[in-house]
């Protein structure tokens, strides 16, 4: 047993340790929690010591994985204890158990502040530590000035100041505004003159955070960083306690070099020279030694120096020196150094043009694929993938294939995807490509996605020279005893199309092909059976003159599947059977598949998606993005540069149609005719690939053009110019405000999207080539929560992102923090809380802007937090409806209006429209079948839940007009709801909206407003 300052805690830990199993442990924990709970209930009897003991026990229990959902208040209350031991426990436990959004934390802000500004240094340290661990926005706003004072205070000891620096870093992360750039930049530079290495280390971390957001403001820190680096590298004035295994504070060296990587360049020639001297010293002066810890430390510095050299675009000579070093590292005994050597070589590929020098190390890198450490194997794979080009593709891909048979299960998927991509991108010839993919399917069929075999089929179909070769290869694989189902699919497909080209070879008669494929049928899934049936039909077609025995065999199979439960298979069986009885006519229909249109490889597209990281503020990454040369982008570049790059070798080769029929003439004269009429062939048997949809945009815009009145655009413009206030904002939302300066065209119609979102709760609000804004909403009573999904569609980050909400007076809206930068291909979610204060149709606007390259793009978008979102459907019976209807006798609670210019629609459609707006149609209440009665509940803070009733009387003779009556217990609500319904009926979505009433007087005199409208 152990002695501890807290005997109870030690006893408890011993008990837990002595539990023979998890069950016993749980019992012991539950008992303890029960005990603590009761003790906490009558708090008066607890001494601070006991409180402390119990709180530590709770923390221990929490670490064991049990939820501790009480005692938080006790932990927080210990913070204000006057004595150190209790206070300490309060702070430590609070920062472990609570998160920054916990309500109790707010209660503690004042105590924490008093500790920070107080004279007691140990209290200061405790308070700073807690704030630094879990301080949130509120802490940032109320404590930042005090914390800043501590950092620069001359009377504070380093112990406090270094904590204050990191505490400020946390607060800055929570709210960047708390650090005033103008005032702080000079202070920051002064801080770097600090002699104490502890304070300097913390300050450097703070600087890294600051410069990663805004390097401009901190230029004056750059030369100071170089000075610090010189001081450390020369080992000047470095106290013994900061020398780690003989190396002057490796952490500070690393952090300083990291900070330097956030400055785009070092302009001052003197500073640059000094910096390169230091770097040179580091690069040359590091050796691999026996002591592991010393090795790690010196190489931490060395690898950071390498990163900085890459960043600074050093001369070629220094670069080759770096690569030589890395080449040495990837062969050393020390696994950590091997690992980082490979990783840094991969980074090197991104940043500079050093491919050829790296290629010299190819053999060693391939050896690393067989390293005992999977971490190292992965790095080697990444590097090989990155360094592959036409010159070495054959070697590398073949190595990867060989490795595939022995590779860890965990790596196979990535390995096969990478091999397939490289084979496609850099194939020296097409037959090699077919070989590679077939081998891939053979060795790792489980990991070969459909995309990969679809792609092979496309290439073979489009390249006539390849067809006999591919068919022969497929035939060979079928001889293997057990083959993967994907192999069955691809070989059946290829042999169905092209086995007739092999007819004279041994083992390739139609009968033999059929029987070897048919052997596989019992073991395959339904989707493969469908392919096999097509293959059989094609074999039949190619067997001219017909072989009665083969025909009977195949017909029997078709007959059998005619009653198959899978419709797809049943259909095929029935059709093929019927077709194959037609003899020669079959040929028209079952002729060879048409060539595939040229399109980007879905595989390469997939690879781009896979490789894009969700980036954080890493210097290397930022840099890579600036240069647009990350591996992900290399892929993209090459595939888009289809005309010149080696990729083109695999481009789908167009074969003149004449040569194709000539070719077939020679094999089978009967084929010429059907092939000549290929274009007329019914494309019923679909090629196994997703069809491209270039018309997507057209599709989206299509219905708009049909539905909208021909002058819609023009009239909209008129409305824009004629209106002010809300209406102007509203109209502006229909088109981006500054179309000319934006130079960015939205994709799809913004108004359409908005109207669609008014009726549903998730979808796209806005899209342009760079950004997509999606929305997902939840509504409960008068509260709503919208989540904005801001997605960056590009491979480079979006900067200066800003989202402002312009709420109308009746909505209370709170948008969470929107990050200023959206990393490439990343999506950020920004929740928006909405509260409806009173009925109104005014619309909230999202003012969204971002910067792409040098373009500032700004759009104003209406947000679908519209009136009907606060409606909840309710069905009422006749007994409830009529008394209500009668009690709301006339204006202003019940309003009636004859509406003209209604979009003609059948009654059923109108009912659907009402239902989709949450106005539930109550059938049978109105005896007249041409009328609709609907009910709903409206929620707002002022009205609470309020029943609304509506009646629509239509005229079957003239569908463009109707009479509408709306009733509710609130005059504003009645008016607003009536107007809302009218908007829905008059036209959706593009007709000019009736001008909305000015927000100041939305409902003072509905009658007058109405008159104005008409």
């Amino acid at each position, binding site marked *: 047993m*152990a002695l501890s*300052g807290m005997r109870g805690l030690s006893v408890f*830990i011993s008990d837990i340790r002595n539990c023979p199993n998890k069950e016993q442990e749980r019992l012991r924990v539950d008992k303890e929690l029960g005990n603590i709970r009761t003790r906490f209930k009558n708090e008066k009897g607890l001494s601070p010591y006991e409180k402390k003991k119990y709180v530590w026990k709770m923390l221990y229990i929490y670490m064991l994985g049990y*939820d501790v959902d009480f005692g938080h208040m006790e932990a927080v209350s210990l913070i204000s204890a006057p004595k150190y031991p209790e206070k300490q426990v309060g702070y430590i436990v609070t920062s472990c158990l609570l998160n920054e959004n916990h309500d109790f934390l707010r209660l503690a802000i004042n105590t924490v502040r008093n500790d920070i500004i107080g004279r007691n240094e140990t209290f200061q340290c405790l308070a700073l530590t807690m704030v630094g661990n879990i301080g949130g926005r509120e802490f940032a706003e109320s404590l930042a000035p005090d914390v800043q004072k501590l950092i620069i205070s001359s009377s504070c000891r380093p112990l406090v100041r270094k904590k204050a620096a*990191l505490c400020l870093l946390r607060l800055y992360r929570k709210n960047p505004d708390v650090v005033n750039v103008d005032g702080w930049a000079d202070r920051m530079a002064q801080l770097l003159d600090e002699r104490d290495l502890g304070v300097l280390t913390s300050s450097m971390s703070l600087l890294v955070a600051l410069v*990663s957001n805004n390097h401009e403001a901190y230029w004056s820190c750059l030369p100071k960083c170089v000075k610090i680096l010189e001081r450390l590298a020369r080992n000047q004035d470095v106290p013994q306690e900061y020398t780690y295994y003989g190396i002057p504070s490796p952490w500070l060296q690393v952090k300083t070099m990291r900070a330097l990587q956030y400055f785009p360049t070092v302009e001052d020639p003197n500073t640059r020279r000094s910096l390169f001297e230091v770097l040179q010293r580091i690069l040359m002066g590091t050796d691999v030694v026996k002591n592991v810890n010393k090795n790690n430390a010196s190489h931490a510095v060395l690898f*950071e120096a390498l990163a900085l050299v890459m960043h600074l675009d050093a001369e070629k000579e220094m670069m080759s020196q770096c690569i030589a070093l890395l080449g040495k590292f990837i062969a050393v005994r020390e696994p950590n150094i091997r690992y980082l050597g490979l990783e840094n070589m991969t980074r090197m590929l991104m940043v500079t043009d050093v491919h050829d020098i790296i290629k010299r190390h190819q053999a060693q890198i391939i050896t690393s694929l067989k390293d005992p450490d999977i*971490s190292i194997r992965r790095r080697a794979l990444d590097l090989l993938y990155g360094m592959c080009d036409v010159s070495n593709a054959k070697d590398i891909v073949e190595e990867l294939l060989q490795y595939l048979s022995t590779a860890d299960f965990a790596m196979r998927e990535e390995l096969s995807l990478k091999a397939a991509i490289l084979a496609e991108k850099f194939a020296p010839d097409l037959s090699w490509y077919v070989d590679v993919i077939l081998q891939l399917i053979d060795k790792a069929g489980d990991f070969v996605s459909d995309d990969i075999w679809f792609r092979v089929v496309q290439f073979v179909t489009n390249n006539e020279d390849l067809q006999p070769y591919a068919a022969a290869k497929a035939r060979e694989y079928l001889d293997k005893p057990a083959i993967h189902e994907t192999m069955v699919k691809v070989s059946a497909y290829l042999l169905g199309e092209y086995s007739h080209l092999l007819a004279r070879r041994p083992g390739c008669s139609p009968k033999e092909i059929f029987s070897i494929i048919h052997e596989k049928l019992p073991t395959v899934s339904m989707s493969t059976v469908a392919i096999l049936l097509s293959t059989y039909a094609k074999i039949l077609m190619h067997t001219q003159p017909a072989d009665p025995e083969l025909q009977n065999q195949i017909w029997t199979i078709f007959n059998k599947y005619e009653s198959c439960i899978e419709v797809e298979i049943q259909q095929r069986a029935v059709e093929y059977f019927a077709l194959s009885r037609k003899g020669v006519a079959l040929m028209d229909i079952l002729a060879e598949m048409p060539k595939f249109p040229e399109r980007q490889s879905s595989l390469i597209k997939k690879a781009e998606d896979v490789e894009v990281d969700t980036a954080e503020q890493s210097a290397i990454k930022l840099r890579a993005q600036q240069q647009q040369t990350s591996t992900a982008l290399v892929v993209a570049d090459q595939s888009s540069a289809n005309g010149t790059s080696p990729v083109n070798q695999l481009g789908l080769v167009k074969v003149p149609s004449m040569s194709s029929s000539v070719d077939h003439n020679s094999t089978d004269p009967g084929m010429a005719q059907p092939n000549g009429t290929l274009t007329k062939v019914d494309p019923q048997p679909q090629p196994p690939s997703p069809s491209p949809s270039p018309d997507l945009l057209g599709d989206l815009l299509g219905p708009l053009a049909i539905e909208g009145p021909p002058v819609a655009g023009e009239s909209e413009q008129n409305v824009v110019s004629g209106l002010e206030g809300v209406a102007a904002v509203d109209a502006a939302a229909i088109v981006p405000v500054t179309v000319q300066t934006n130079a960015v065209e939205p994709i799809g119609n913004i108004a359409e999207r908005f109207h669609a979102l008014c009726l549903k709760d998730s979808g796209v609000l806005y899209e342009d080539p760079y950004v997509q804004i999606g929305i997902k909403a939840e509504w409960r009573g008068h509260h709503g929560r919208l989540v904005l999904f801001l997605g960056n569609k590009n491979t480079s980050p979006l900067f200066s992102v800003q989202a402002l909400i312009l709420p109308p007076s009746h909505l209370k809206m709170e948008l969470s923090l929107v990050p200023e930068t959206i990393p490439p291909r990343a999506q950020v979610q920004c929740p928006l809380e909405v509260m409806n204060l009173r009925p109104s149709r005014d619309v909230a606007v999202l003012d969204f802007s971002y910067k792409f390259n040098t373009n500032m793009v700004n759009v104003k978008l209406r947000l679908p937090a519209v009136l009907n979102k606060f409606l909840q459907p309710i069905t009422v019976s006749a007994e409830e409806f009529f008394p209500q209807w009668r009690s709301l006798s006339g204006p202003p609670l019940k309003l009636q209006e004859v509406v003209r210019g209604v979009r003609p629609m059948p009654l059923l459609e109108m009912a659907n429209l009402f239902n989709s707006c949450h106005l539930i149609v109550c059938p049978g209440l109105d005896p007249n079948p041409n009328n609709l009665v609907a009910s709903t509940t409206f929620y707002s803070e002022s009205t609470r839940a309020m029943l609304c009733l509506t009646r629509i009387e239509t005229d079957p003779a003239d569908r463009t007009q109707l009479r509408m009556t709306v009733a509710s217990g609130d005059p504003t609500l009645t008016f607003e709801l009536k107007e809302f319904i009218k908007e829905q009926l008059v036209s959706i979505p593009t007709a000019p909206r009736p001008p909305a009433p000015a927000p100041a007087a939305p409902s003072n005199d509905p009658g007058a407003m109405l008159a104005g409208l008409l």
Partner: protein
Amino acid sequence: MIKSVMVMNTQGKPRLAKFYDFQPVEKQQELIRSVFGVLCGRADNVSNFVEADSIFGPGTRLVYKHFATLYFVFIFDSSENELAMLDLIQVFVETLDKCFKNVCELDIVYNYSKLHTILDEIIFGGQVLETSSIEVIKAVEEISKCSPSLSPSTCLSFFGPSTRPLLLCYN
């Protein structure tokens, strides 16, 4: 930024788990289990780096060091240098060793509160606070003066693997 520090024994029992961005308790346990799942399969002569993207999300790195019966694990993002993190683990363990004289797993189990105090003097809100073990010990001693319960407790049970000194076994 350092996202998490974990200390667990070679059976997967957590001895310390500190998360610098908040994780609910179930998630914490899940992460500890996943990390142990990866670590327990690794031999001794391999690197100290493990691919952690699948556990903690893309761009996360994990370094660990194995001492006697314990794994010390740091999880951090790409703004930190991997080897420097490895050095920091060493500083942490050396500091423990100086505090407890031949520190072993049992010391860590019973001096749970002290372990927290030491870690808080080395890592602060996910950032490196102090790298000199001498400075750390000074700070911890100052705290101990204020808080008598934090004076180190010694293990009285002499048997079993959990009394193996961490550092002797490592070197």
